[in-house]
């Protein structure tokens, strides 16, 4: 019985080591996303649905940002000290004031692995803003529904639509 548990533990550790650990972020974003999706569909209150929706979108943002991560790379902002100290002999793009020089078009001396990948960050800036905009409009619509139906529970709203007792404008 004992070695059975050991094998099981050893198997689980192996699984975590080789399968989960290298893709840790990607597994966590899937879990987060599923929580959001569950909230979106199962919850009956409109606001809770919106919370589920924003968790759903945040998970995607987590996925995109973890795309661009490079081991021991700094944020994608060019820092002069690191470039200067790393290879003094190398011709560096100088300070802004003495900039004048053209780049020679070949692969530059800047080591790309030193900086994180900027593109996912740009994309996620847009996705965040889109998420905020959608959330804003959804909240406005939810408020308009509350004005007319007096409730935010979806099943009550459907009830009221069937019976037809909601504020009917002209």
């Amino acid at each position, binding site marked *: 019985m004992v070695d059975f548990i050991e094998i099981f533990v050893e198997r689980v550790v192996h699984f975590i080591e080789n399968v989960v650990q290298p893709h840790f972020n990607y597994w966590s974003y899937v879990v987060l996303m599923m929580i959001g999706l569950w909230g979106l569909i199962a919850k009956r209150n409109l606001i809770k649905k919106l919370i589920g929706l924003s968790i759903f979108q945040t998970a995607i943002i987590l996925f995109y940002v973890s795309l661009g991560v490079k081991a021991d790379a700094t944020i994608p902002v060019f820092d002069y000290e690191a470039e200067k100290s790393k290879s003094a002999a190398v011709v560096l793009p100088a300070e802004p004031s003495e900039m004048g020089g053209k780049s020679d078009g070949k692969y530059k001396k800047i080591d790309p692995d030193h900086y994180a990948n900027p593109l996912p960050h740009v994309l996620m800036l847009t996705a965040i803003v889109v998420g905020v905009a959608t959330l804003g*409009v959804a909240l406005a619509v939810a408020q308009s529904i509350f004005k007319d139906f007096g409730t935010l529970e979806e099943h009550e709203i459907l009830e009221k639509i069937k019976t037809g007792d909601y504020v*009917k*404008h002209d």
Partner: protein
Amino acid sequence: MIDQLPVICVLSPLFGALFVALFGSRSHSACFPIAIVSLVISLICAIGCTQQVFTTGQAMDYFVGGWGAGKVVEGVEIPLGFGIQLRVDHLNALVLCIIGIAVLLVSIFAIRPQGEKDTEKTHYFYSLFLMLACGLFGQTITRDAFNLFVLVEVSSLASYGLIAMGSSPRGTVAAFNYIIMGTVGASFYLLGVGYLYLKTGTLNMDGIRQVIELSPDVADSRSVMVAFILIMLGMWIKMAFFPLYGWLPNAYSYCPSSAGAVLAPLMTKVSVYVMIRMMITVFGLEWVFESFDWSALIVWLAVIAIFAGSVFALAQNELKKMLCYLIVAEVGYMVGGAWLADADRWGLTGAIYHILADALMTLCLFLAVATFAKRAGVIKLDDLDGLFKKMPLTMVGFIVGALAMIGVPPTCGFFSKFYLIRGGIESGRWEFVIALLVSSLVNAILFFRIFEIAYFGSSPPEGHGHHDDEEHGETTARRGLEAPLTSLVPLWITAALIIGLGLMNGQVVEFIRKTVGLLGGGAA
């Protein structure tokens, strides 16, 4: 100047929207002229681009910000996908024109503010309307997968606003569901693009396809397949393909009539166009039909969509709801057509032609129904009682749209069915052919039921047909109900276009076939 046209086409509605927001709140009468001017400019650009693509036979490329692939800026050679690329080719040139025409016609239709909650909101309406147009134009010509997501969001947000601003509370509830479903769809698409970016390293559609064709291990990788499924799921939600259509009927029937008239014909069709763009340009038809190869399942889903759409349409007694379920069936046509993996790609050509045909047909029907609702308060089917006498001119427009839906020869509806059936037969998908025929019969029953009610009145007089009212009595006193010119002119132009597109389908399809030939489709 000519190569700046694609961007101007997208920008003029944007500038229109901004000026309407700026000046509209003070003088509501200023909104309409600004809207018309900006939409006319974009229509002229759209036609100019199509003309250019037609004469030169080459697609028009446009790199925003001057970051052209291969161009040397400041001594740096710019790789593909560095900037955002726009491209007008044989596939989207016509879609661009159809959007331009539809948006212009509906803006003319929407000039007379119907009894919305408060008519002070016309400038909000026109601002959202123009942003919707800008989003649709951008979606059609963009060549960058992520930029497509942003433009889908622009047009979706504008459509959420347009639907929710109506006076009927049911409209706001439908808008809420539409927001949730639309955002989930867009997020799935975004996730799919993320998976693709991770495996191919670029966001440019051509770049992705080159990598997929270049390295087999990327092509056969699981994540590219999952990316494709996610993108398809996202687009199917957006176009209300069968299992995911829950939001469409309420959203388009309880929204303000002029909003419905622009959303119904365009939103779902542009999503179908995006799906086809994804299949042809991003993944390449070989990858889609060989290594992915789920076409049998998806054609069966389309067949179910067609049957379900038609049967639900039969069951409705509200006019707009019925048309909405017909849209669900038409989406089944297009998706089914696109996924027929027939050798000469006739199914795909039929689907693309059907995008154009269906946009016009739905526009014609929704304009007519909106006019009925506005002038004669027609909601249910039996309110159509004796409408031939009251509104004969609008009824003629409705008839042309209905005949196109049924698929009577001179109209474009017949020819698109012809190509789809041809594709169905050549690819051996007989269930798709049968579905098409049955749904045209159901359409025939649906629309002739309406004609009967409108022609005879809901309960015709008993006994022999002899009327002794004097002979010229048929022009009854209710002449006053006839629709105003601003809603008749768009309706008749659309009806004329439906017949024109039908008769000109030879050249149109030759033009479309070049896409299928150029971009790795079957033989041209």
